[in-house]
């Protein structure tokens, strides 16, 4: 087949809602766009372990500690699924890690905010994982087969993350005045950054149009954000907390909540490297990566020894 015919076959598949699989011909732009999005997604899972991991040793009970440990472990697994998925497109894990550590690759800017109190662990599970789920449910229908399959797997595992976070918030809200105030404070700090997770407005989003055309993305940033805003209102009400958005109002005509504007200056400040924890996150990743080098070296030395013994025998 000629390049033209291959391209036509590719677009026919996209048109017919068929998945693209690793060995298929695909336009270079499609491949690069996927590598960018999937590796960014993988980095987010891994960097996202840091703010919550910070609380594992200080969880208030053994039950909470076990839950948090299990959740953070899940996120590490999600990172692995996604790095492997990106590798089907011809990029190596080492290249992706290098791009992350040299700040060429991005990750979800929400993880540049610190988890300052125990209530933040609840707010992160409820809001940050909640927003991630809205996005990932939509991505189950992405056009690239391996990405779609990893999203299906991740969504199954993700369901407990949001529930444990909300349960934690509910416990605090039914506790003392102080505990409830702590929950309110966590909500206030994480609500807006959670909305930013869906990315800039569709009109401002550099990659959106092409991604939608290729069906890598299936719903626009603003539509997904609206979904999250709508589902979160009754959840805040049920906790008996105050909504951080003073402009939130049900719009009968639209069948959605109207809402206040996001502070986009903050969004661009954090995404371009100047959030509260950007440097710390990358430094931590590099440090742990380097400190773990001896384990990788020891494993490969052991493999070599085993191979030599097998040859000698």
């Amino acid at each position, binding site marked *: 087949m000629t390049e033209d015919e291959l391209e036509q076959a590719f677009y026919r598949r996209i048109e017919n809602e068929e998945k693209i699989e690793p060995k298929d011909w695909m336009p270079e732009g499609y491949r690069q766009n996927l590598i960018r999005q999937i590796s960014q997604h993988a980095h987010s899972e891994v960097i996202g372990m840091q703010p919550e991991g910070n609380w594992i040793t200080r969880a208030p009970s053994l039950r909470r500690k076990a839950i948090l440990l299990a959740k953070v472990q899940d996120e590490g697994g999600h990172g692995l699924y996604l790095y492997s998925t990106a590798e089907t497109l011809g990029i190596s894990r080492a290249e992706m890690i290098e791009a992350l550590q040299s700040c060429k690759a991005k990750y979800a800017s929400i993880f540049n905010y610190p988890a300052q109190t125990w209530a933040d662990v609840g707010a992160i599970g409820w809001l940050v994982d909640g927003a991630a789920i809205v996005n990932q449910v939509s991505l189950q229908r992405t056009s690239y*087969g391996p990405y779609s399959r990893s999203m299906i797997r991740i969504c199954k595992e993700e369901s407990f993350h949001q*529930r444990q976070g909300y*349960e934690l918030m509910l416990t605090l809200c039914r506790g003392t005045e102080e505990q409830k105030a702590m929950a309110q404070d966590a909500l206030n700090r994480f609500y807006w950054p959670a909305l930013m997770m869906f990315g800039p407005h569709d009109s401002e989003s550099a990659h959106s149009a092409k991604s939608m055309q290729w069906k890598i993305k299936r719903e626009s940033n603003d539509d997904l954000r609206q979904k999250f805003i709508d589902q979160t209102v009754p959840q805040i009400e049920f906790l008996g907390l105050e909504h951080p958005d003073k402009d939130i109002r049900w719009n009968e005509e639209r069948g959605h909540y109207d809402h206040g504007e996001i502070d986009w200056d903050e969004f661009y400040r954090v995404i371009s490297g100047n959030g509260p924890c950007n440097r710390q996150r990358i430094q931590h990743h590099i440090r742990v990566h380097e400190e773990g080098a001896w384990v990788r070296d020891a494993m490969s030395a052991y493999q070599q020894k085993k191979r030599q013994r097998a040859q000698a025998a």
Partner: protein
Amino acid sequence: MIKEHLDLYEVFIRGKRGLDHKHVGSLHAEDPEQALEYARDIYTRRGEGVSIWVVRSRDITASQEDDSEAFYDPSNDKPYRLATYYRLPDEVNNM
């Protein structure tokens, strides 16, 4: 060459684009290319798939079901990994 001594291959078929490859069976072949052709002849006579993988059986490392108790033990007592472990009131139970 004695036929019985040919390598055993495991065959995996993707039924439809978007689905995982599923194990369907095994066969003997001289080499991977031949295994692929045999697999086509044996396992996809009725359009069962759009893609075939063949893997030399001896290249597969498998866990043993007999050992499963010890092997899976670390996760058996962690019900908090399931969404159903968290009981939420009906009003907010849809998450």
